[in-house]
């Protein structure tokens, strides 16, 4: 099977620091690939390269087998790669619907849209409401509520819904449960699995081992700027994964990259 998204031998240097040292990554259709790694292992640089926020010095990124060269997150987004940032990238004072359609607003058909550039609020609200209820965030009453009035889990839910609505190829999630309580994390994990069930492959960056082992199909362990190995959560224990991640254990021979 051909990977949807593939990184080949990416290199990124910041001065004398090598953040990515010939890093590879493959994401296959319909899977959740978790990316774990110690602080400073270079996983966020890798993810930023995939989402267009960092331009690698060397190496190729392939989407559906074709080489892509993103120079901004907007290009990656247009190519079908949606990212849920750890900061969520939402405007607190604007409404849920405004935030979901930020940067890709729908205009009214006809003269009002073409000449007066009027937004089609009704349609955007309708789509937002529909997408949120598809993802089980059903009880939203007021789609025009400001995002700052939502709880952390609800905001995360809106951000995931935005990515799932517009991501046609890949969704990248950066620490989606880091700022959440146990109960809210639970909801977000369910949401992540819902997104996979709809056929979108997901790259999940997380520090939370129980979460990673619960939802991931494969786990990409990043160490010292490159991929140490890829494991299946059913074959290894969490402590093994942590041991490989920190270098306490060598990656298994047959799985080493």
């Amino acid at each position, binding site marked *: 099977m051909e990977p949807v998204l593939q990184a080949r031998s990416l290199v990124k240097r910041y001065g004398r620091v090598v953040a990515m040292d010939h890093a590879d990554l493959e994401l296959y259709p319909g899977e959740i690939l978790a990316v774990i790694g110690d602080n400073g292992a270079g996983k966020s640089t890798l993810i930023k390269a995939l989402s267009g*926020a960092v331009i690698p010095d060397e190496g190729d990124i392939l989407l559906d087998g074709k080489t892509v060269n993103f120079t901004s*997150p*907007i290009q990656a*987004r247009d190519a079908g790669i949606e*990212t849920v*940032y750890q*900061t*969520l*990238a*939402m*405007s*607190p*004072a*604007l409404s849920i619907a*405004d*935030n979901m359609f*930020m*940067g*890709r*607003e729908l*205009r009214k058909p006809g003269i009002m849209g073409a000449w*007066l*550039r*009027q*937004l089609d*609020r009704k349609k955007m609200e309708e789509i937002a409401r529909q997408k949120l209820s598809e993802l*089980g*965030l*059903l*009880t*939203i*009453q*007021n789609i025009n*509520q*400001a995002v*700052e*009035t*939502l*709880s952390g*889990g*609800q905001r995360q*839910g809106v951000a995931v819904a935005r990515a799932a609505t517009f991501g046609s190829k890949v969704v990248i999630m950066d620490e989606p449960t880091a700022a959440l309580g*146990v*109960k*809210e*994390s*639970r*909801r977000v994990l369910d949401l992540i699995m819902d997104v996979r069930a709809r056929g979108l492959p997901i790259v999940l960056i997380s520090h939370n081992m*129980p*979460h990673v*082992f*619960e939802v991931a199909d494969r786990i990409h362990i990043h160490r010292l700027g490159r991929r140490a190995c890829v494991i299946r*959560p*059913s*074959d*290894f*224990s*969490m402590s*093994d994964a942590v041991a490989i991640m920190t270098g306490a254990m060598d990656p*298994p021979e047959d799985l080493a990259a």
Partner: protein
Amino acid sequence: MTSETKTAGESADYEAAADSSPQAVASFDEHHHGLGHKIQHTLHQTPSLVPLIVLVLSIIAFGIMLGSKFFSPFALTLILQQVQIVGIVAAAQSIVILTAGIDLSVGAIMVLSSVVMGQFTFRYGLPVEVAVACGLLCGTICGYINGFLVAVVKLPPFIVTLGMWQIVLATNFLYSANETIRSQDIANTAPLLQLFGNKVNIGGAIFTYGVIFLVLLVLVLAYALRQTAWGRHVYAVGDDPEAAQLSGVQVKKVLISVYMLSGLICAFAGWAMIGRIGSVSPTSGQLANIESITAVVIGGISLFGGRGSILGSLFGALIVGVFTLGLRLLGADAQWTYLLIGLLIIAAVAVDQWIRKVSV
């Protein structure tokens, strides 16, 4: 090397407590209690409500104290005429402040643009239409410089516009050689410059073209801010520029467009000012920057960006106008006006802070 995992078991333990608790995390019901909350929520939704209430109350108060002397079509439209320049400049100031910026150079740009309109007509003998177009272009270019320095060079708006204020004002005095173009000369040879001074009389209510322009301008801007993608982006940039960038807003373009539009509106204010005072004077409009910021703040637009509505700044400008005329008709010392305006500014910001406390 491989070991059988207990992943499923572990995570079940880990979240056993969570599973038994209610799963209604992602419900978005509103449950407000108490009048305070309701008021706070309403104001959060419609931030221009506070200045509107203050405006209506102050009109009623002065109406009761002064009777028909104040509560006449003539007096009420006189207020509009007195605030038209500040109102137009406040509209420019509003869109800049919505992006969490500030424009201290508005007054200077206004004066320079009016001087360009006048001097191009009288010094170079250009057709007045061309001179006006050059004046509008001049304002837009000044705005572009502000926008470029803020968005691309990433200097703080306060510093950029503080510098531009001095630069533009000095340019204005150097270029005009501190010469005033007399009202009669303009009326004789280039009446287009005084266009905004033309009056429409409807039953004692006198509307100048400048007043009509102010109202139309505010309505058009309100539409653009509320109903177009550009407007939503202005709010998003003011709210959190990094988030806006990541969600696909072209932050630099939005910022530059806002400062350019601000410059253009200031140039229109300069044109309207010729209509108001009749002559082209390089020394006029010196306080426009502070007065416009006052109107914007009283109008409930947050200086931290992303919150407020342009209608609010119109109300803010009108509140200042009502107090000024009302107190003058009452025969009070003009300092009382400033004292009350000062109180209003502080009260407006206090209300803004209260609205921002999101326990809504």
